[in-house]
């Protein structure tokens, strides 16, 4: 039976925590995430959740508390965003070293300066190398589903790492759409009780993350973190099968959208994937063999799936809603390195940077990306110049703002 509700991405994230019956929520507010914690605080107060919610003094303390609680055997949830994630980032590395699982929802918001509230993925990708599992959601349904899958993966004995579920601020966090909220009894069946082999306890001291000093010992533990992260793939595969049999929805590390016989494939993640799909549907109506590959699991990186779905395609474009200054999009080199070894790799892989700071992407811009891919298909260019998306109407607005900043009185 479906339990469809019209809810925001943030509300869906709160539902994931509630259905997972989390024990402990250390919290610190930041827009556009705060609504998640507010919702959970309300539910705890109303007795709808048997959890302890504590507002701490920073994200750094929040993740420290989360890690310690996780090692006592408590199921931990928290949410953050942008500057908050970066402030807590040091502790995220510690948590993976402690092998302390939790689910942390990051509501993407571009990093200052200049300051904004709207999303891009430089925040969550700054945590790319922290040893956390990363699942990125396109819509509110995925937020609740990936939230539950994230607990299965993070707490699995083979993994035991923190997991980040990412959703875009505004475009998903504050967007309401139809969500089938899973039934509690079935979630209980899906998600076993979290158990730690040697939990922290007052009567039986345990030491975690002790200093090693020697590089070989450090290497030993870090190879283990790497191995644990790699194993998250098979755990997702298993968990996803169980999830499908209970809820009818299956989540691989990637999503193939209209990829049969597609020659021009857009690789994209998060909520703007919806905009890419709209362009693909429209192109298919005109007989253009367009398709889309959505990256859902960013860590571990789905090398196999990326390689097997993109091999033999004519042209691929990687849409990066992030920017590593001096390099370019962050996902572009990850995707291209997954393709390099293939004999039948696509001839051209087009780098696209767009949507920084929540810059909106019109249908025209998405179509322009496919237009460029088709041109590359025709001329066979193998090292295409990156596209940095910006429209003339936006540039006109920038110039208007700059003139005001210089003291020119704007015309009405």
């Amino acid at each position: 039976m479906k339990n469809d509700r019209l809810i925001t991405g943030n509300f869906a994230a709160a539902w994931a925590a509630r259905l997972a019956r989390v024990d402990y929520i250390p919290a610190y507010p930041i827009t556009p995430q705060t609504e998640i914690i507010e919702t959970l605080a309300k539910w705890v107060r109303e007795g709808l959740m048997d959890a302890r919610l504590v507002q701490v003094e920073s994200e750094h303390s929040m993740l420290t508390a989360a890690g310690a609680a996780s090692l006592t055997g408590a199921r931990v949830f928290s949410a953050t965003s942008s500057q908050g994630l970066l402030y807590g980032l040091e502790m995220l590395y510690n948590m993976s070293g402690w092998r302390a699982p939790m689910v942390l929802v990051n509501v993407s918001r571009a990093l200052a300066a200049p300051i904004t509230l709207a999303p891009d993925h430089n925040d969550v990708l700054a945590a790319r190398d922290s040893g956390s599992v990363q699942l990125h959601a396109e819509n509110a349904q995925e937020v609740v589903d990936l939230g539950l899958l994230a607990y299965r993966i993070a707490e699995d004995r083979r993994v035991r790492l923190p997991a980040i579920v990412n959703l875009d601020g505004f475009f998903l966090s504050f967007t309401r759409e139809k969500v089938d909220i899973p039934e509690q009894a079935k979630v209980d069946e899906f998600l076993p009780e979290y158990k730690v082999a040697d939990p922290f306890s007052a009567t039986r001291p345990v030491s975690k993350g002790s200093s090693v000093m020697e590089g070989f010992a450090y290497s030993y533990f870090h190879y283990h973190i790497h191995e644990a992260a790699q194993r998250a793939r098979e755990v997702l595969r298993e968990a996803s099968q169980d999830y499908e049999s209970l809820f009818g929805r299956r989540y691989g590390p990637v999503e193939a959208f209209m990829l049969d016989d597609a020659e021009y494939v857009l690789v994209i993640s998060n909520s703007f994937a919806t905009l890419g799909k709209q362009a693909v549907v429209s192109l298919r109506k005109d007989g253009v063999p367009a398709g889309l590959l959505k990256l859902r699991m960013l860590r571990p990186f789905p090398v196999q799936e990326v390689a097997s779905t993109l091999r033999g395609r004519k042209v691929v474009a990687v849409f990066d809603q992030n920017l590593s200054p001096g390099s370019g999009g962050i996902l572009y080199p990850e995707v291209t390195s997954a393709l390099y070894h293939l004999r039948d790799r696509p001839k051209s892989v087009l780098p696209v940077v767009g949507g920084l700071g929540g810059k909106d992407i019109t249908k025209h811009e998405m179509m322009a990306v496919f237009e460029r891919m088709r041109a590359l298909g025709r001329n066979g260019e193998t090292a295409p110049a990156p596209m940095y998306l910006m429209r003339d109407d936006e540039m006109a607005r920038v110039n208007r703002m700059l003139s005001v900043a210089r003291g020119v009185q704007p015309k009405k």
Partner: protein
Amino acid sequence: MNAQDFPLYGAERRGAPVTAFTRVSDGDILERGYIFDPDISVVMDESLLDDPLANPLAGLRRGGVLLVNTRRSAEAYRRTREDITILTVDLTDLALKVLGRPVLSAASAAAAARVLSIAEASLQRAVADELEEIGVGGGLAAKNLELAGLIYAKLKPMRLETRELGAAETLVPLSVIVSGSGSEDAVSTGNSYLRRTGDWRTYRPVIDYARCTDCMVCYAYCPESAMSVKDDGRISIDYDNCKGCLICVTECPLRAIVKQQEGVA
């Protein structure tokens, strides 16, 4: 039937303009975020029609509907655009009469629902659900439902046959984007007065100079620095930037500041 909505606001400020988008479709909704080419545009504050930043008419499709909350007639807006249908209704007045305050959410939802032929029962359920979610029940919820019903009865459903404006968009190459110095600063600081936040008011504070003793309490309390001292030593209000929060009306120890509804003589 699928639906999706998406509100946009800047840093939270009471009275600041907000934009919200709603999509309704029989099929899947393969869009999110901004609506660039709406079929119907509901303008809850008519001063936004002249605001170049808000520009609520941008992209409104040919054959689309512009619904304005105003005391003026549709005739007053006829010259805005020839290729759309303009409807006007005084939502603020009705909200003040029924709710006692200018809260327009149920009112504007009712107006849009009627124009889009959404059943009244669905509207009533949506208003009740929305209010329940933010903890509003009892008498206030009942009044909102009454307000929604009143507005629903005032308007007529429209048959929408629209098409895109087809405005040309072009992409700007990186070389053009980065042709400036790349490290521009705001060298002209303090330019926020250029934003005429006075347009946001529903009520304006008015000083009764016969009673005012220039005690400066309002000056101290005004969160917008909209109170100033004129050359003759008397307090005056900068109506271009006063947002109408009415804190001065509350704080004035002599009750020498009164509120007047905007647009009412």
